[in-house]
């Protein structure tokens, strides 16, 4: 799950490697991504879990700032913000209390950070290390299927599917135990500079 955000952005960048026939397409998507350093979107996350009587629905906003990291702001059913950077995750509650966990606490965090750097540096080989990637579609309507290679990830995850056009529109994660998560993005907008509040969030690291 924590790889999710990284994968969301990386999928576009790594397409070129996965489907050489779509090289040109991927390169254009890649350039587009590089032009605008800030990306904002609204999200709806729906978790289908056997342990619950009905799906868990979360709504919120997402901000991606190139070279900085990701803000994952849950607005309902509770207010909770996650600041994800290369070397740490900060959880900020409704009361403003921040709780930081570093790469030392979370051994997998470095890997997430590396995936981010791969994105920012357009090192497109990186996702291939973890997933087998299948792609089809056009630059305006594409789909990616990521299947984990044998390893620790494959124990828990069956497949990740992404779909999008100019931006990623939908991510669906299917876990090995049958649970699944679907995240839908809306109103995705690009920007040249992060807002003062966003800068402050990343600056607090």
């Amino acid at each position, binding site marked *: 799950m924590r790889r999710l955000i990284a994968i969301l952005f990386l999928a576009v960048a790594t397409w070129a490697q996965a489907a050489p026939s779509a090289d040109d397409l991927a390169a254009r998507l890649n350039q587009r991504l590089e032009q605008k350093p800030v990306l904002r979107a609204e999200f709806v996350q729906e978790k289908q879990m056997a342990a619950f009587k009905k799906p868990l629905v979360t709504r919120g906003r997402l901000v991606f700032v190139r070279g900085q990291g990701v803000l994952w702001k849950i607005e309902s*059913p509770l207010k909770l913000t996650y600041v994800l950077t290369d070397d740490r995750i900060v959880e900020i*509650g409704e009361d403003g209390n921040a709780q930081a966990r570093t790469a030392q606490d979370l051994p997998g965090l470095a890997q997430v950070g590396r995936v981010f750097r791969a994105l920012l540096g357009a090192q497109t080989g990186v996702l291939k290390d973890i997933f087998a990637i299948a792609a089809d579609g056009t630059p305006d309507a594409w789909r990616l299927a990521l299947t984990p290679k044998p390893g620790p990830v494959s124990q828990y995850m069956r497949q990740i599917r992404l779909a999008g056009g100019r931006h990623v529109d939908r991510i669906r994660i299917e876990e090995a135990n049958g649970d699944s998560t679907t995240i839908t993005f809306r109103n995705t907008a690009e920007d040249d500079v992060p807002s003062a509040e966003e800068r402050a969030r990343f600056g607090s690291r």
Partner: protein
Amino acid sequence: MAWRQWAAYLWVAIALACAAFVGLRFSQGSPVEADLLALLPPTERNPNAEAAVKVLSDRLGNRVLFLVGHPDGNQAKTLAHDFADRLRQSDAFARVIDQAPKVDGKLVAEIYAPYRAALLTSADRKLLQDPVFDAEALLLRRMYQPFHAGLPTDTAVDPFGFLQHWLSRLPLAQTALTIEDGVLVARDGGNTYVLVLAEPTGNAFDAATQGKVVAAVDAAETRIKAQAPQAAILRTGGLFYGHAARTSAQREVDLIGGGSLIGILILLWSLFRSLRPLALGMGTVAIGIACGMASVLALDGKIHLITLVFGASLIGEAVDYAIQYFAAHLDSGDQWNPEAGLRRVLPGLAVAVATSLIGYGALSLTPFPAVSQIALFAFVGLSTAWVSVVLLLPRFVRRPCGRDADQSVRLPRRILSTWREKATPRLVAMLSLAIIAVSIPGWLRLAPDDDVRQLVSRPASLTEQESVIRRLAGAGGSGRFFLVEGGNDEEALQREEALTERLLPKIGHGIAGFSAISDFVPSQATQDLNRRLLASALPQDKVAKLLDGQGFQPAAAQAWSAALADTASSLTLADWRNGPLAMPVKHQMLPPGTSGMALLVTLTGDDGSLDLSALSAGLPGISVVDKTASVSALFAEYRRLATLWLPAALAIVLAILAARYGIRQGTVILIPTLLAMGAALAAYGYSGTQLTLFTMMGLVLVLGVGVNYAIFVVEAGDRAPAPFAGVVLSAATTILSFGLLSLSSMPALHQFGLVLLIGVGCSVLLAPIALTLAGGKKPCA
């Protein structure tokens, strides 16, 4: 005289037997020890601590590590596989591992899930004890958080995430590497590195094993580099250090032994111009070396490299006795009588060998296996060479020397006569005072250094590779660790927990982490506390209501009440240590001895800045084991002791000299050596070389060896230049050998060599002082 003949035959027989014994041992596989750790003495009073040191060093010693790197990640993985395959094909390795250890997350969760009500991280324990603990907020975070750390657990079984937190704190992968495509990788400076581990067939310190492994690794590396020029292959392991030490030691044995031999032969030839003294002189040296080696092999079973290198330098000293005898032979001309010749040189030779043996005998008092082996070798080698001269040479040197003595010794005669003319007692006294005056500022600059690393030299290229591997793979450490002892499992675990409580805040401040068994198996007391905390903060009814309110299926509440109700089952060390998770940390649990349980807490990324003793002060059953520091402390202790031996050795040498020459002349004979020792120390001070135990032991040797030349000079007197020429020749051979020794790359031998070179050199140059002050009188005896 028949008994002498029989004694000579017997002696030759003994020498041949020794040589045969040495030859036999070498034919049965090399008995040469290259293990650097074998040089270190046992330092720990606690037998568990010494056992722990051995367990850890065996674990690290008998395996080799590689990082195969390439700018392209996939290429690096392919190359690592190729590299591993080549190693496998070489038959030098019993096992080559390029696959990541398979940590089965599901299995780990299954093992611990039954005990989940007894397992809490210390952070969660604090949270539960908090009076404003908000169970609902915790539950919501768990349900809606977009990321979670470590091994996922089933939300129904672990609704609050306590088990997940606990599992994610398990030190399962004691490495900074990540698993990708089933291999362990690290990224650094644009390169992707893949870890390859290998275990050699046979002992890592065995010469044959080392040769095979290094050849296989070099061949594989060459192939990989040919395939991919950008590839980088880093290696580390005790085997490579052992091999480097062996190779350089062999080079040094060749250099010192061969250099001494050739130099001595040239020197001998220049004086005697005959093959006979050369052959016979070398014969006595060979007997000495054979007997020295045989005694070491018989007593210690193995002979260390350092002994061999030092032994090579002993040639120059052992040949002195023969030289003195041949000098007498040369001096006698037509009047030669082998027995009378022996009688003439015997008293001087006896005193000379006695003082040398005192010097080496003092060395054998040190507790360092390497040094006492050197002492044994020298002691036996010198005494047997001496006996060979006394017993054998009169048998073989029967005919008078055909050479004109005056012709051969023109140069020594000139030196001697110049000295006799110019040197007055007054001048000599002034010279002595001048030497002392010049030395004093040097003495004041002397500073000690007792670091154990003095004993071993490590090639820079290997240590660089090791430090990169250590940084990237996070493996290895400083060699410091904690030993936790308890009367039983429970007591040991409780004591260890008390220690880890103090260690936790230090992570990131001097250490990167630690590995403790109680992180896998908490003590019974902690498990009971955890149960009590959970039952009081999250009782069954409260949790059931909470879970239902958040839309959980009823199964979750049932599982919670079942976990709380089951107070009987707990995780025990006895069960756990036989399970699959114990395998990687088996070495941290010492085999159960007679008394209780001993656990090791190892540190990772220890930069040495933490005061471990202060950290664990006041905790029962905890001891800090730091082999490096213990050995260094022992060095310091013996260096201080050596400063006491030195006067004692002086007194003994003086007593021996007084017995033969009387107290006044005995003192006079000692003066050049004392001045030489002072000059050697001053040279150390001026050059800023640190004073070590080896310097002090070198000084003891300077005393034992340097005084020989004053003895020889006084014995020879001013009767004839030939014996004096013998003295100069003896000194030249000794200085040549020790001078070559000072070129050794082994710090300990280099220090020995340097002290001996300066000390013995000065002793020789100053030896005529004794002649001047003694007034050229014959010994009174």
